């Protein structure tokens, strides 16, 4: 058993992703998305994927590349605005979609990682989201929500060490640490790969125990979706 988690690049780190795999993909819109892993997916001869991601790409970029290749069987996400490719595939029934309130989405992923078998939340009560779900009344009527897990998580961090300890920049953290906890195999790409001990132990956002593979990514675009500046 080798203990090295360090891989050379996205192609090598994603070697065992197959057709029908379920994959969580981190980031929000185009912010903090695992660009190298998404490119690798777009080059692999696989399909029928289940993708769990807040937006499944946006504005024609990110996971939309994979979406347009018709490799996605099922999309589990929270928001479709700004992703016309996804909206079209859903409205024309080319793809199965499951829309989840974003807080429930986060908490279900966390639950999978943290060993919680189910939890009650008022979010979604009285809406389509409640369809078929068990309801129990606490201070308010609540839905029973179940853990959301996956075969793989592909996520990006700003800095990672060889053990997989991660540090995220600004608002790029989002769902990524949670997905790392919830997936059987978590593949991390980082802007900067450092030696263990280089991230202050108090400031590690995700302990390396949740990471199986890590590599330093290349050619990041870090695209801005809506550039807004002062006057």
């Amino acid at each position, binding site marked *: 058993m080798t203990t090295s988690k360090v891989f050379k690049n996205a192609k090598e780190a994603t070697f065992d992703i197959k057709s029908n795999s379920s994959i969580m993909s981190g980031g*929000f819109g185009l912010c903090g998305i695992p660009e190298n892993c998404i490119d690798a997916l777009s080059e692999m001869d696989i399909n029928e994927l289940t993708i769990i991601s807040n937006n499944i790409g946006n504005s024609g970029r990110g996971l939309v590349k994979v979406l347009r290749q018709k490799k996605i069987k099922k999309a589990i*996400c929270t928001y479709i605005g700004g992703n016309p490719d996804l909206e079209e595939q859903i409205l024309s029934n080319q793809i199965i979609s499951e829309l989840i*309130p974003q807080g429930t989405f986060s908490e279900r992923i966390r639950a999978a990682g943290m060993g919680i078998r189910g939890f009650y939340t008022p979010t979604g009560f009285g809406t389509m*989201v409640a369809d078929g779900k068990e309801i129990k009344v606490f201070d308010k009527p609540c839905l029973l929500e179940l853990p959301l897990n996956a075969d793989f998580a592909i996520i990006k961090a700003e800095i990672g060490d060889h053990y997989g300890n991660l540090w995220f920049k600004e608002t790029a953290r*989002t769902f990524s640490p*949670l997905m790392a906890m919830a997936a059987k195999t978590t593949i991390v790409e980082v802007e900067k790969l450092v030696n263990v001990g280089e991230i202050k132990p108090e400031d590690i956002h995700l302990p390396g125990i949740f990471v199986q593979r890590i590599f330093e990514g290349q050619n990041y675009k870090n695209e801005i979706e809506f550039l*807004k500046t002062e006057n």
Partner: protein
Amino acid sequence: MLENKFWTKNEMIKKVISYFPNGSSVNLGIGLPTLVAEMINEDLNIFIQSENGVLGVKGRPKKNEVSPTLINAGKETISIKKGASFFDSALSFGMIRGGHIDFSVLGGMEVDVEGNLANWMVPGEKITGMGGAMDLVNGAKCVIVVMNHFTKKGNPKLVKKCTLPLTGVKVVNIIVTELGVFKPVENKFEIVELANKITVDDLQIEKELIK
């Protein structure tokens, strides 16, 4: 022209801001509500949360301070104020769902007299997705909907009963449109305030729905 009497977007946002006590916390939805971050007076010491994982949004960045990893939930570049913090989505929504956010300001497609809100899809036509809206309306202490008074077809969005898929049940506290400020109270819309020279007739809301 009725339009000449309407509040401008800035005037609508000022009405929204007038509800915030000094030191309160606010989450801003996508679109019009984000104007709050740009217009708010710093002395109010408001902490603006964006559900993608930041507390302490300030407004727009200077051109030379733009960061692709510093955005709001509308995926627009932002700046932050001193005392801001970043966190993951579980903590971000815990902040919302745990009742720690004082105000949620968000857009609407329909609001009815019971305070029900619809704002995430038109079946067969348009799916925006609920994003964080369902969490926000159930979690924030006060929910303010800021929206155009009329649909593109000219019908009022303040209705007796929502027809679109709901975002939340009995969740809206205040509605701000370009015609006035309203509250769903006892199965009617209470008129809190009307824009200058706007009359009750201008609202085009059925008379029996007005308190």
